[in-house]
């Protein structure tokens, strides 16, 4: 008996040795930094370029590895606060603020000055995605504008006139109905063609002049006629007009095709319009026969497009902070920016590169020139997404989508669903601020500002712009002439 146990023990020890020696981080000679982000072919290429670039510049040698398995927001958060975050952290939307609040991001101001990746180098409109107050916690690697790509040939095939670059909700609906009627004539109902893959709820709502949060982001504003109307519109478009596919339709595609990403379906003429940004071109370029144009998301009274920014920050607990800073410096380099331009990954972080010839008129893709020009034009309407510092983005998204989907599925009426969602979110906000005195102080201050704003509006007076923290309302008020720059 004891010999059996002893030999098992020895076997286990040997196994441990084998396990340890086959682990890849033991086998490498240079420091390895992990960059947690979504992986795309463009990103892989950029990392390769980065390794070459360091060699050229004679910088210290090290390896950057991409890690996409931990790239969702809650994992980044929990791992960060547990001490096992990746060295380099990608941040989208309001993750910069969120991560900063936990203390896990390094203050980059000294490194930024040293390596030259300061705020003034990049687009001002993206500032909130890597600046928290005056502290810099990251640097953008790219931005993208969400628009529709329109398949010109499909429109021509079914004899539907092309809509204009900016179109209202009414025009959108009419065109969509006409298209869907023409395209599906005589088709098997299971072989339907749809007009577009999704309609972005946020831009639709903003197009009616309403954001999900109030001007100072202190309270949720979902229980209002505009949000309800948005749900009713989407419901109508999905279930009555059938211009947007339902989940069941998507499942059906999933069964019969080998690759069912939205882009693939678009290429195969299932959609007339595809939601995307410049990054979609990476895949669309492989099908050069597609003649495409860009269209804005439909609006009701306020044209707007959604600007997304991806930034990169450095983990406070990283052992290689100095080395990580080189990656951020890389983002300001010509090599990187031109690579973004050429691979059409997105809009480059350094603004000057987006007005180069290569960006606007890429030699290999003449069909795209109109797209790039149109996208540039639409930048004028760009507004960053809003996310309140008083509630976790994941919580907010979970609640909002849960009730929106439930309302669409008919479990609640739109009014009920939105009322519940708003109530739920406001409770979460209450919860969050009651637990954190610092945050509560900030909240109370902003609440006073909110009251001031509302009073001024009621009296018809202009609101000083610095009082508004919601990026959407900043723009909205300015366009409407309701605010002044003091």
């Amino acid at each position, binding site marked *: 008996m004891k010999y059996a146990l002893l030999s098992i023990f020895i076997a286990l020890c040997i196994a441990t040795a084998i396990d340890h020696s086959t682990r890849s981080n033991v086998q490498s000679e240079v420091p390895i930094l992990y960059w947690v982000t979504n992986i795309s072919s463009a990103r892989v290429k950029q990392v390769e370029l980065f390794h070459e670039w360091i060699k050229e510049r004679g910088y210290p040698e090290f390896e950057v590895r991409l890690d996409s398995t931990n790239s969702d927001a809650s994992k980044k958060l929990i791992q960060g606060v547990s001490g096992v975050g990746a060295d380099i952290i990608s941040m989208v939307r309001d993750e910069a603020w969120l991560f900063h609040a936990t203390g896990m991001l390094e203050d980059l101001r000294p490194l930024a000055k040293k390596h030259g990746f300061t705020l003034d180098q990049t687009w001002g409109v993206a500032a909130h995605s890597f600046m928290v107050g005056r502290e810099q916690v990251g640097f953008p690697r790219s931005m993208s504008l969400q628009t529709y790509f329109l398949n010109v040939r499909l429109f021509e095939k079914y004899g539907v006139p092309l809509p204009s670059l900016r179109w209202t909700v009414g025009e959108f609906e009419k065109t969509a109905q006409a298209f869907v009627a023409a395209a599906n004539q005589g088709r098997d109902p299971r072989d339907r063609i749809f007009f577009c893959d999704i309609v972005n709820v946020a831009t639709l709502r903003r197009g009616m002049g309403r954001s999900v949060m109030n001007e100072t982001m202190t309270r949720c504003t979902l229980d209002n006629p505009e949000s309800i109307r948005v749900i009713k519109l989407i419901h109508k478009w999905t279930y009555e007009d059938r211009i947007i596919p339902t989940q*069941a339709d998507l499942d059906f595609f999933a*069964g019969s095709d080998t690759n069912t990403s939205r882009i693939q379906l678009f290429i195969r003429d299932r959609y007339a319009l595809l939601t995307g940004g410049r990054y979609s071109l990476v895949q669309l370029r492989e099908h050069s026969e597609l003649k495409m144009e860009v269209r804005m998301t439909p609006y009701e009274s306020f044209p707007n497009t959604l600007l997304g920014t991806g930034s990169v920050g450095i983990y406070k607990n990283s052992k290689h902070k100095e080395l990580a800073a080189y990656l951020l410096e890389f983002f300001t380099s010509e090599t990187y920016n031109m690579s973004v331009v050429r691979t059409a990954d997105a809009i480059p972080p350094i603004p000057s590169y987006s007005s180069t010839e290569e960006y606007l008129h890429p030699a290999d893709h003449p069909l795209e020139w109109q797209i790039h020009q149109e996208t540039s034009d639409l930048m004028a309407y760009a507004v960053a997404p809003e996310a309140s510092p008083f509630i976790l983005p994941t919580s907010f998204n*979970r609640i909002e989508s849960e009730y929106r989907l439930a309302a669409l599925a008919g479990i609640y009426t739109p009014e009920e669903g939105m009322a519940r969602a708003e109530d739920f979110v406001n409770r979460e906000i209450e919860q969050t601020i009651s637990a954190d005195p610092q945050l509560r102080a900030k909240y109370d201050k902003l609440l006073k500002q909110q009251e001031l704003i509302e009073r001024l509006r009621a009296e018809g007076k202009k609101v000083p712009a610095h009082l508004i923290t919601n990026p959407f309302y900043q723009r909205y008020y300015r366009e409407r002439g309701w605010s002044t720059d003091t």
Partner: protein
Amino acid sequence: MRIKHPTFRRLVTGLSFLGPSIIGFMAFTMIPLVLSFILAFTNWDVRRHNMFRTEQIEFIGWDNFERMFSHPAFWQYLSNTLFFMLGIPVAIIGSLVAALLLTKELNGPSGLRRIHFIAMGVLMISLAVLLFTGFDFGNMLLLIVLLFAGILLAGLVGKATVYRTMFYAPHFTAGVATFLLWKKMYNPHTGPVNAALRPVVSTIQDVFQTLPPAIGPILGVLGVALGLTLMAFLFRRIGQAWTDGDLGRGALIGLSFISLLPAYLGWRWMEGSWLVILVLLGNLGLLLFFVVRRSLQPPFRQVAPSVGFANLVLPLTGGIVGQLIFIGLAMVAVQLPAMAATGEMAPPDWLANFYWAKPAIMIMAFWAAVGSNNMILYIAGITNIPQELYEASEIDGANAWQKFWNVTWPQLAPVTFFIVVMSVIHGLQGGFEMARAMTQGGPAGATTTLSYFVFIEGFESGRLGYASAVVWALFAMVMFVTLLNFKFGNRHVND
């Protein structure tokens, strides 16, 4: 004389053997346990209390618990958990039936043994050949026949062991692997479940399109009637038990209350349709006729108030679940003519559908639970029943059903009790793995149980103090129910 010395030495010896275990136990069980209990009363949030920020954790007393009970979705998650637990009586009955079948003495057919084997063999070989040469139609049928023949053959050779392996396999392999398997099987458009259902549904649609619309309510009433019949049997049993002096007054009242549960649940979940009113009236009527009427007369002998509760509560609960299922089917039946008329009847979306997600998971859970450890415990229990009891009842002229009810069932009572206690404990804390692997708690929170809720709160939002509070509240519920079980459920205690 040093009296302490031998005691001290024994202590040292005892502890030195215990050593490794208790160090680990303390470090990874006791200390975390105590810590977690303390932390449930604090405002610990990893976003604020971590290695980068120097804030102090504060005690907030019962705040976490208050917040939990006022959380609007808490009650939904609790009711989800309880709904899943409705499957427990069905699963236990399933395990019992399986155990009964597996403990029958199975004989290989004696005289014709060789011929059977040869016939089987020939059958299988020919089928295999047919399959591989690509018979285009009826492939599925051939597969089924082939499998059946193969299993039968194996069973004839290996007898109970083979069948037991097949029954036990779903439970034994349960885990993420099988959850993903079922997730793929439930896929509305590519999965075999709907593929099998589609022709059935379309036949139903055709049939119902030709029938008059009145057939719907008729079928609904039929379903309700079946449910009521089930309850009638149970009520009769209860009444009989009272008259025979096997049931105490307190137990009688308790059981009666429980039996009205389907009506109440139906009313809440199915929004007062006329069917539910029918069910309510039917149950009341049956209760009055079988139970109340009898209870007005004195019993054969007086017994303590709580006697006999344990004996009958499980069949009653099983019957209630059965009645609920019948009501559910009746409600569907009522809608069938209308659904058929649209011409677009299709099998449900299962996991993607708010109403079908839970039943889908429960079906899978039943599949894994029939052949579970419960079945094995029952097998052991059944084989331990002395034969003399059966022989004695045969002398009294008992048929198979009576033999079961009067001999087998009471003898299995301790096993049943144990199984119920463990099932309830697991049921209250379960559902996490299935939710995480199959539905992420959706759609719209339909499959979020309390344990999944802990995961969301704790590991997504970082509010670990709050998550600890929820877990301890859960544990308190488990303890409470277990104590109830011990008090009222243990037959030995009351007899």
